[in-house]
């Protein structure tokens, strides 16, 4: 375990930024928190969560896939992928770390998505244990331990220091480079913090939310539930929940005609949108109820079915905080989950 006193954090960040682009969470105006590219002296936010998740670094809102030049009847494909630069994302919470594992299941499954893989290979995640989880947190429901956030390097921030523990080879390599600004340390402070976190987690209002009722092969149990209608009644069909979600990965591929050619790009898409499944021949999900159901069934049943029981929700609580009508996966689970969740 390595340690770096907080008074030395600027030196630490500068050291990391020497070899790679560093992103740290930063407090912005009006309580907003976002990852920003580190510049000398920048202060890291103590906020629990960034408004948008770490998904953006690996699966950005829009990205160019390729370009085309067309002339007469001929087409030329310009593959302008380039090697990603090395980068470090600092202070990723346990839920967001886990979300990358969920995204990996999709993008790194054969055939591998090279855009995602490229960034995944060049990105190092320095996680951060949550000392002050909030009321909307329910990562424990999905077996995530906020006191052991994983990532490439696990980080604990106490009142006076950062403590680091390398988890992966990539993490070890980065930590080794930081020897000049860190010192060796025992685990006492970290163990104390872990204990303290466990105590706090036990006091969270959503601590009793259970996902046991859901999971692989439960389609029949929930698909035709009459509750979907009431749950989705007020849904606006906007994409807020899907876009703030760290695990939502549906995308659209679109062409943009520039003045000189065609750019094919992909962008986030949302199963909540009415045109998500629309074809010229028809539409399999006609109402918002079906689209709403799709989202939650996917997170709680379909995804686990295809991925050895892994849920595609990490309990980060962003959708709970952001939905314009305050309808969210917690309410869905409580309503459909029956007695277990009352």
């Amino acid at each position, binding site marked *: 375990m390595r340690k770096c006193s907080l008074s030395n954090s600027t030196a630490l960040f500068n050291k990391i930024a020497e070899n790679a682009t560093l992103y740290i969470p930063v407090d912005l105006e009006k309580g907003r928190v976002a990852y920003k590219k580190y510049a000398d002296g920048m202060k890291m936010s103590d906020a629990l969560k960034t408004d948008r998740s770490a998904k953006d670094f690996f699966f950005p809102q829009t990205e160019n896939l390729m370009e085309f030049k067309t002339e007469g009847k001929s087409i030329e494909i310009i593959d302008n992928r380039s090697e990603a630069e090395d980068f470090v994302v600092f202070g990723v919470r346990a839920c967001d770390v886990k979300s990358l594992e969920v995204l990996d299941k999709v993008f790194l499954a054969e055939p591998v998505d090279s855009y995602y893989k490229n960034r995944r290979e060049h990105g190092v995640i320095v996680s951060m244990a949550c000392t002050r989880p909030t009321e909307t947190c329910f990562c424990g429901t999905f077996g995530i331990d906020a006191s052991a956030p994983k990532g490439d390097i696990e980080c604990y921030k106490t009142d006076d220091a950062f403590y680091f523990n390398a988890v992966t080879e990539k993490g070890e390599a980065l930590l080794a480079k930081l020897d000049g600004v860190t010192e060796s340390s025992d685990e006492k402070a970290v163990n104390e913090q872990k204990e303290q976190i466990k105590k706090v987690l036990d006091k969270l209002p959503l601590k009793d939310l259970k996902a046991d009722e859901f999971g692989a092969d439960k389609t029949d149990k929930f698909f035709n539930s009459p509750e979907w209608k009431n749950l989705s009644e007020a849904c606006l069909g906007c994409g807020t929940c899907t876009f703030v979600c760290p695990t939502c990965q549906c995308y659209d591929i679109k062409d943009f005609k*520039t003045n*000189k050619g065609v750019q094919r790009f992909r962008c986030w898409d949302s199963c909540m949108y009415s045109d998500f499944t629309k074809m010229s021949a028809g539409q399999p999900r006609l109402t918002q109820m079906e689209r709403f159901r799709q989202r939650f069934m996917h997170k709680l049943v379909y995804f686990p079915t295809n991925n050895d029981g892994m849920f595609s929700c990490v309990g980060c609580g962003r959708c709970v905080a952001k939905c314009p009508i305050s309808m969210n996966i917690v309410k869905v689970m409580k309503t459909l989950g029956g007695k277990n969740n009352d």
Partner: protein
Amino acid sequence: MQVNEYKPKIVAFCCNWCSYAGADLAGSNRLAYPAEVKVIRVPCSCRVNPMFILRAFQRGADGVILCGCHPGDCHYTSGNYYTRRRMALLFSMLEYLGIEKERTRVEWVSAAEGAKFAATMNDFVATVKSLGENKRLEDLRCKR
């Protein structure tokens, strides 16, 4: 070697009944106005919705000018009155967003005002030229 002089791209929406005829007259009277002005004929200035203006900027225009009949002379009686309201609000909004107000303009040019058309265009091109390239309302994808 020839110096590459900056030539702004200007889109001029001209109503079919007055301003387009005005442009025609400017042409037949051999009144010069810059070749950077691309005239788009519309049935009435009222046909131009705010999206057209934004799209022109997106596609690389540095200035957009909208020409219609003089208020009161609209071929469709009242089209240009609506245009006037819409564009007053739209231009005011663009200005509010910090986009140079000189990049957009509405002028009333009748079919008899060939000279005014040429003068307007000369003036507008010069104004936009002094502002330089449109940076605030550009779509980089269309620039490369």
